[in-house]
């Protein structure tokens, strides 16, 4: 398989949102379906509320771990403005799956910079297909903001070359060992994400 036959995913958001875990679950699902996988991110200072991107690449054989600008098959944005920031990483025709949650950093609060009025519109104006959904609100409805991560994974599940069930199994297996009580609610969150993205795709 040539390098350009790899699947390239850019997961982006803010330190503390669970970006790295989401990318890891994606990687595990790729391994489970017989792919070679590489996953990388810049950690360190980024965990202090800064920008975090995780690159996931899988295919028959993956060499470089980095998803280059113009090559991502989709981006999975955990926050609206972060989804907007990384659209140059998409290959032409690829889509941005974006949580519409707005997290304003202190540099915005103190008035040094403005938060974009409508990130989804900005993404679309740049010529990118955008599927927006409110994972934050959905997580709140399910009773725990930490569920955003599982909702995001549900949202991306049907875009992958392997079935959504594999991804879900990898996600839920994590909970089965350590927090069995949370399996059901994460299952619901995952399905909620799938439903949200389907609804978003219909509107688009």
């Amino acid at each position, binding site marked *: 398989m040539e*390098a350009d036959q790899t699947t390239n995913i850019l997961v982006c958001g803010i*330190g503390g949102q669970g970006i790295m875990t989401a990318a*890891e679950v994606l*990687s*595990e699902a790729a*391994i489970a379906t017989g792919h*070679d*996988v*590489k*996953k*990388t*991110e*810049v*950690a*360190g*200072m*980024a*965990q*202090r*509320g*800064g*920008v975090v991107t995780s690159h996931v690449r899988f295919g028959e054989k*993956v*060499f*470089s*771990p*980095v998803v*280059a*600008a*113009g*090559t991502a098959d989709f981006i999975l944005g955990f926050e609206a*403005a*972060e989804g*907007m*920031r990384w*659209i*140059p990483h*998409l*290959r*032409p025709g690829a889509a941005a799956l974006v949580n519409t949650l707005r997290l*304003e*950093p*202190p*540099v*915005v*609060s*103190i*008035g*040094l*910079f*403005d*938060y*974009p009025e409508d990130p989804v519109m*900005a*993404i679309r104006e*740049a*010529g990118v297909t955008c599927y927006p959904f409110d994972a934050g609100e959905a997580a709140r409805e399910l009773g725990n*903001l930490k569920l955003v991560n599982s909702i995001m994974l549900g949202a991306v599940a049907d875009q992958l070359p392997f079935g959504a069930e594999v991804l879900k199994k990898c996600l839920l297996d994590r909970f089965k*060992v*350590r927090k069995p009580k949370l399996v059901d609610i994460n299952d619901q969150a995952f399905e909620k994400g799938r439903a949200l993205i389907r609804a978003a795709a219909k509107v688009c």
Partner: protein
Amino acid sequence: MLTHPLVSAEAGTKMLLSGNEAVARAVWEAGCRVAAAYPGTPSTEILENVCLFKDMYSEWSVNEKVSLEVAIGASMAGSRAFCAMKHVGLNVASDALMTQTLAGVGGGLVIAVADDVGFSSSQNEQDSRFWGRFAHLPILEPADSQEAFEMTRLAFGLSEDLDAPVILRMTTRICHVKAMVTVGERHEKAVAGFKKDPDRWVMTPAAAQKRVPWMLQRDRRLKDMANRSGLNRLEQGADKRLGFITSGPAYMHVKEAFPNHPILKMGFSHPLPEREIRALAEQVEKIVVAEEVEPLVEGELKAMGLDVVIHGKDILPEFGELSPANMRGPVAKLLGETYKPPVTIPPVKVFPRPPTMCTACPHLGVFYTLSRVRNIYISGDIGCYTLGAGHPWEALDTCISMGASMGIALGLDKGRGAVDEKKGIVGVIGDSTFLHMGMQGLLDIVYNKGNVTIMLLDNRAVGMTGGQENPGSGRDIHGEEAPRVDFAKLVEALGVRPERIRRVDPYVLPDLFKTVRHEVKQNEPSVILTDQPCVLIDDYDALKPLYVEEDKCTGCANCLDVGCPAILVTKRGKEVKNNGKEVDLAWVKIETSACTGCNLCPDTCAHDAILPFTPVVAEMP
């Protein structure tokens, strides 16, 4: 207790591991008995994973030099020993290294050094491969997790065969890339025991001098090993117009971008495998060296007098990471071809999102205060509190290296001109940093009668790297209870007068402000201790969140100067003062899901619009 998968995985299991995790597993499999490190990105997770293996000793040392010394001691005792550090850590450890290389090893001694290529979180980007030549040591460079695993296991044996410490040079894209690794099993090594041998272990000038010919002899063996090593591999390619020489993750980028060219992949890169290099040079017209940070191999190659043109940093990026994307253009140009980069969507303008201090971080009050004390210079240090240089505080004036805030503060004091005569000088340092390298600086301040105020911000953790333990945290690497250093006693022992050692709660702004103002006016060294735990560690107890009473908020925005990420603006406006001056207003709310009720921001609100849910304790009569 659940066993961590890294520990419980049986031989032959395929795992998705980062380079750091892979090294940890390999250290254990190699029968290593003692491992030590000081946390530092991107190397931190190595020891965090090594310590999961309870059948070997592991520790957080106070600094990298001590971690290497511990490993050296264990090696002398006949055990396989390991230490890990980031690139700048090896500067700290280099004193021990440069002599140890003369003494050689007992049990295999492996040093993993992680270079922060691309400045993910470091004050510089340096190339640790230079230590190979400087210290006459082999350098092994893995290109992915599997190689990191294999090379680590192999490095212990290599160290014993060669009688030298071995440096495993990692970079960010090894440490923090997860890829598949097939693990093996642990091989116990018999401990040879310490053998008295003063000619080796006691490096007096006379003894050390005698070791040099031995070391030079070892260099020749080392050269031979590099030439014969299977870690250096010449991969054939049909397009002979150009060949590549590369190592580490740069190999992966080259392999992806230029699969049709011959590639010499070096895993054992110091000393250079001359035989393989000449074999490549004979079959290609040009060589491109793809190496990360310095043009080290490029220079040595040019000195070999090869009959081919050597390119490297003349066409490739001179700093930062290499990638398929940033190499394709320059290489195509070299071949006289045109390269069409992928069509990219132009970037849209988005505000920057720099890292910031956490919600309720105990440092927030300190930097809020420092930003408001006039006429001071602030010498800063390495850690979360380096963020104090950013918005909204802008309350750091210098930051060079770990522990340097102490000496630099003294230097600012001693070197000040008349224009700075009335300035106060404040040095800011964290607990772990103080124990790592700050203590000696404070001793120097006392001894040389410096007039500086030290703020020792004790948050009982190495905060920036994720809250690791240190002698100030009261816990060891396994989270078990350990003696907790008494910082007040310690600084007193270093010579600071008890009257000048002040303890302040960093969440009580008026006290903090008064104390700093008072201490900077003293004419002797003083230390202000703050002692509240990092919000990311177990010691931190969140209180009930605060909220803003909308009717009372006047839009003064004072609370925003604290810099807490939980305070958000709901509305902006302007007001014209009596003197005609226009001021910006911002009304706020508090994100209750994030707020932990630290009670810092209410102190900044003149209108009591921020209300704590915590019970109000009656004032003492």
